[in-house]
């Protein structure tokens, strides 16, 4: 309640600034859509990969913007606020991901250019003897990664609109009341859908340039705001040093982050995010390996600086400004903050206008837009990638193998419209019915989306570097890895019932406390991949000898 009242108070101090900033931002995105449309050539490769001609500035900003969703501005400072400094170790995943942009990305781009591949399934299936099973499995991994991200980002846009326009009136349609949440989620979806439909990858990447620039600047300004709110760097460091020991050490305030879990998250979650379909397509869209080489350097240095000096210190500063409370053994956010992921918004709301000088209202409004941009940059890239995966890997290969390029382009656009509409409908229904099972399941899926994507690593490394695996090994490994990750979702409880599901869930919880989920699946995946590949080769050698 306090948080809502403060939001209303802040909005009145910002005046019309959020509306103006939002209007300018959305108009800019639509202008970029028009530019993308005018530059477009009517080919599938142009729609999905911008003709493979993107230079390093666009490549680096689109890759960085796609890498981080709204979690960069909401969940990351929120988790530092909750857990303390332990979660700041997470920033060390960024140089790993940055290095992989060149080490994996440049090779992916070169193979894709030579083979005319667009999606991960295109290339991996082609490598393993044009196997339909491999294609379906890799496409499935892509869909499992992409769908939760699109839905969650649209939902985040709705929640942000509630913060920006808390006094907005409501309308009632068919007995349902719609307010700022519905308006925010709908406007975000429609604008995003329009610029993806009209300009394809070119518009999405240009929008990512705007969104990435806003996001990076926003992170640093947010860090400055919290430091200024505490009186400058000296008082900030002093206030942080006075935090309780649990906030300044591992395993964090809730005991969640051990060194092993952090290390496996840093390595495997980052690599999983780098080989997901939207990033893969960005590697393929780069003009040259040189563009990816520069992107790799920029990513590895700029993003960690923005995290370590910008958005993560917000979480620690918020801990000093709004100490969390322990009630009945449970750690809860301060009532002024309301929810853990509102730490940055609370700092901006309560201190932004004062500490940022005369331009404070404008900068605070821009920071709110930066959070919206973070949501949109992930959702648009993933929606665009979903269109490519479903059109090229499923429709073109299994449903209508003879479809013309023009037909495929229209199907791709239909996927974008249908995907946006479905995601929006799920989010709207879920907002009115807290127990709405499909949305709850998708939200749960977000936590394992990277773990599913991680299961592609063995086949990608085999395809690019080792060349030892076999088709049956790849299929076996992927199925084993995906099933292992599925054990960490609510699926076992639903499918196996309470008596069998309970021990599985307990084992999964225990493993989750030790390691990253993706890593657990990867171990099983690699063992199966190597074993089956070895057996298949031995059997073939035997046949040859006979």
């Amino acid at each position: 309640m306090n948080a809502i009242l403060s939001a209303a108070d802040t909005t009145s101090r910002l005046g019309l600034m959020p509306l103006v900033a939002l209007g300018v931002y959305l108009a800019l995105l639509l202008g970029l859509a028009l530019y993308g449309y005018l530059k477009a050539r009517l080919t599938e490769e142009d729609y999905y990969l911008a003709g493979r001609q993107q230079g390093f500035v666009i490549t680096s900003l689109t890759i960085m913007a796609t890498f981080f969703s709204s979690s960069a501005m909401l969940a990351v400072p929120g988790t530092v606020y909750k857990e303390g400094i332990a979660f700041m170790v997470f920033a060390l995943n960024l140089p790993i991901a940055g290095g992989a942009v060149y080490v994996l990305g440049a090779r992916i781009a070169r193979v894709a250019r030579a083979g005319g591949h667009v999606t991960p399934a295109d290339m991996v299936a082609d490598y393993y003897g044009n196997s339909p099973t491999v294609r379906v499995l890799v496409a499935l991994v892509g869909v499992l990664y992409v769908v939760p991200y699109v839905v969650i980002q649209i939902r985040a846009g709705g929640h942000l609109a509630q913060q920006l326009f808390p006094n907005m009136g409501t309308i009632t349609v068919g007995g349902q009341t719609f307010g700022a949440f519905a308006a925010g989620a709908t406007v975000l979806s429609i604008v995003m859908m329009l610029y993806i439909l009209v300009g394809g990858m070119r518009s999405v990447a240009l929008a990512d340039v705007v969104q990435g620039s806003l996001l990076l600047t926003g992170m640093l300004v947010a860090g400055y705001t919290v430091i200024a709110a505490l009186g400058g760097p000296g008082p900030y460091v002093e206030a942080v040093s006075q935090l309780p020991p649990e906030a300044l050490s591992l395993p964090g305030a809730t005991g969640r982050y051990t060194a092993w879990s952090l290390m496996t998250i840093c390595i495997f979650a980052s690599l999983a995010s780098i080989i997901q379909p939207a990033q893969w397509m960005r590697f393929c869209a780069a003009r040259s390996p040189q563009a990816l080489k520069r992107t790799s350097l920029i990513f590895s240095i700029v993003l960690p600086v923005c995290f370590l000096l910008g958005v993560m210190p917000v979480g620690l500063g918020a801990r000093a400004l709004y100490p969390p409370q322990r009630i009945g053994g449970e750690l809860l956010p301060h009532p002024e903050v309301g929810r853990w992921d509102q730490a940055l918004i609370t700092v901006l709301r309560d201190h932004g206008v004062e500490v940022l000088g005369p331009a404070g209202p404008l900068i605070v409004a821009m920071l709110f837009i930066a959070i919206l941009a973070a949501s949109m940059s992930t959702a648009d890239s993933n929606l665009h990638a979903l269109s490519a995966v479903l059109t090229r890997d499923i429709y073109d290969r299994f449903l209508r193998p003879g479809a013309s390029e023009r037909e495929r382009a229209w199907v791709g656009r239909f996927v974008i419209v249908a995907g946006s509409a479905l995601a929006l409908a799920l989010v709207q229904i879920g907002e009115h019915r807290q127990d709405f099972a499909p949305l709850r399941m998708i939200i749960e899926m977000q936590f394992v989306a990277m773990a599913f994507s991680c299961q592609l690593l063995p086949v990608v490394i085999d395809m690019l570097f080792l060349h030892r695996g076999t088709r049956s090994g790849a299929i076996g490994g992927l199925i084993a890895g995906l099933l292992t990750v599925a054990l960490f979702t609510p699926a076992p409880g639903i499918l196996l019932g309470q008596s069998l599901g309970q021990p599985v869930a307990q084992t999964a919880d225990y493993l989750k406390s030790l390691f990253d989920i993706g890593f657990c699946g990867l171990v099983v995946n690699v063992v199966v991949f190597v074993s089956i590949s070895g057996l298949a080769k031995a059997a073939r050698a035997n046949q040859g000898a006979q």
Partner: protein
Amino acid sequence: MNDRSCLLRKRLSTVLSLVFAIAIVMGAGPGLYLVNPAPSDSAAHVTWLGLPILYAWIVFWFLVEAMVIVLAYLFLWDAAQESDVLPESQHRDGPHGNTNP
């Protein structure tokens, strides 16, 4: 590229990979316990030069990782010289690559 330069690149590649792996283990892995103040010990040193010790540790290992990437960018990642990145099987077998069953 002559043999000597090739050998130097290979050695540099090994050294940088090793340093990067050490930085991951030290900065994001069990190495953290070397400096981690015990939460239950109220007398533990939680700061170093005024900064929270864990934060200083993370920033140090980030700098090491960043340095490795800068060196790789300058001396290893020579895109023009990476002519043979297509999987061998693709060279050998044409577009369908690995045809092992």
